[in-house]
């Protein structure tokens, strides 16, 4: 198996792993971590599959991932501050159970 597909599969694994953690964990910090793991998974798929070329790997996918990394860190920063504010306002760094009534 060429490493491209190996790493792409690892990316898929990270994506689902992150999704699982995102759903089961209540603590917001863990949810944010989970989202970051998911993002890493997506980036890995993007870059790994870009290596299926003869010579130089596809630079467009690399550029997309660099864009993605910056977006991810921006979102993470906002999420972390928001988490702290939620903690201050409600006393817990968790979301209340869905108010389905």
């Amino acid at each position, binding site marked *: 198996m060429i490493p491209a597909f190996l790493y792409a599969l690892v990316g898929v694994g990270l994506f689902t792993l992150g999704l699982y953690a995102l759903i089961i964990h209540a603590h917001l910090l863990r949810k944010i971590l989970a989202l970051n793991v998911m993002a890493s998974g997506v980036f890995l798929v993007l870059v790994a599959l870009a290596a299926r070329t003869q010579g130089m790997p596809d630079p467009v*996918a690399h550029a*997309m991932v660099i864009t*993605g990394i910056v977006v991810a860190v921006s979102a993470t920063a*906002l*999420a972390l501050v*928001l988490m702290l504010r939620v903690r201050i*306002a*409600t006393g817990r760094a968790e979301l*209340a159970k869905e108010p389905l009534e």
Partner: protein
Amino acid sequence: MLALDIPWGVMAIILPLAGAMSCFLWPRCALPLGLVTALAIVICVAGLGWQLLEQGAQRYAVGGWGAPLGIDLYADGLTLLMLMMTAVVGLGISIYSCGYFNQDRARHFWPLWMFLWAALNALFLSADIFNLYVTLELLGLAAVALVALAGGADALTGAMRYLLVSLLGSLCYLLGVALLYHSFGSVDIATLAERVESSPAVWAAMGLMITGLLLKTALFPLHFWLPSAHASAPAPVSALLSALVVKASFYILLRLWLEIFPFAGAALAQLLGLLGAAAVLWGGLQALRQTRLKMLIAYSTVAQLGYLFLAFPLASITGWTGALYVLLSHAAAKTAMFMAAGNILYFGGHDRIVDLDRVVQHLPLTITAFALAGISIMGLPPSGGFIAKWLLLEAAIRSGQWWWGIALILGGLLSAAWVFKVVGYAFTRSEVPHEARAVPAAMEWTALLMAVVAILLGLFVPWLLALMEIGLPFGGEGSAG
């Protein structure tokens, strides 16, 4: 014709970005700067409309490279209507928020709102699925920050949940983009539409992208995040979230569905229709059960979003036009409603429905706005909502799938029930005098004006349909009926 050569669409993206930066740099002048930008954007959209009418659908290669290497912008009738909707609602919200926010809040509101507007315009104009991802993120972060602007536990929790959902949706979408890109070597929608063919990777991409976008569009049962976020945000923010932001992800979904996934098949369309019908009924029932006005309006958004998906199983031009009409009239009507709710909150300090009779009578314009918007929401003539209902019903009967009409009709009755439940308080006599804060006239009049727009949408249908047909976004004439 020099003015026809100006790339109006590009200006509609650049101006709000520049506006956002200048509002951020000089917070004391944020309000005039924002208003001027808003006006300029409206002019740009009008210019683009003129351009499209004269020259037909437009493609614009950013950087001069052209697809597939570069990023293309594309504007047809569908784009234009979305941009016009954003411009009208955006202008209304800009004026409304002059009165709504105090100096301290306005300082944060304006740059965020300008960023959001830029994101919307960029999104509607983009013809590149990765660029759409970036605009989605821009949109999502701006929306979350705006929700959190209200402060307070409810708003912060709502914003947090919204952020997580929004990021999850974007990631699903991005993974889909990755699969599509690596299948066909392009992220340009038109190029993909040419090259696309059914394969496991495409199906996976379709599943991921549709799921991600449905999550952001809050289609039942993925709507769980919407009521708390929309209801707890400041009123103008609630308005723009319900009117514009959820529509943006729907727009992407629609484009992908029409262009890249035409092979998706009837089963998936039926599933979307089913979820839409469930949303209509569930949202309507929940709206009826709410005790707080803004929560009620938020649930009604869930229901109205359901209507949009009824068009998928119908798959005819009439059906798509109907869905588009729901989208437009809901935007105007829901803006008016959230503004009205904002006025009531501003005036009386609460939005408990049972205590409304003490507030409502002092705000005749506001309640008129609410009632007019309600007429459109429940689909009574003459209003945009009625036209939408008519078109969808016609499409349902024509395609022989009359059962979708039942959801449509029941949804209309449910919304009639809650609209009149609220409006009924306008006619009760209040004994208790209420201590109140005067509502700025601009806030009342903008609410009314937006409601009038929702009504007028029902009277200028041929004109709007002519705009919509530029570039034939829903395919040729032949497939009607």
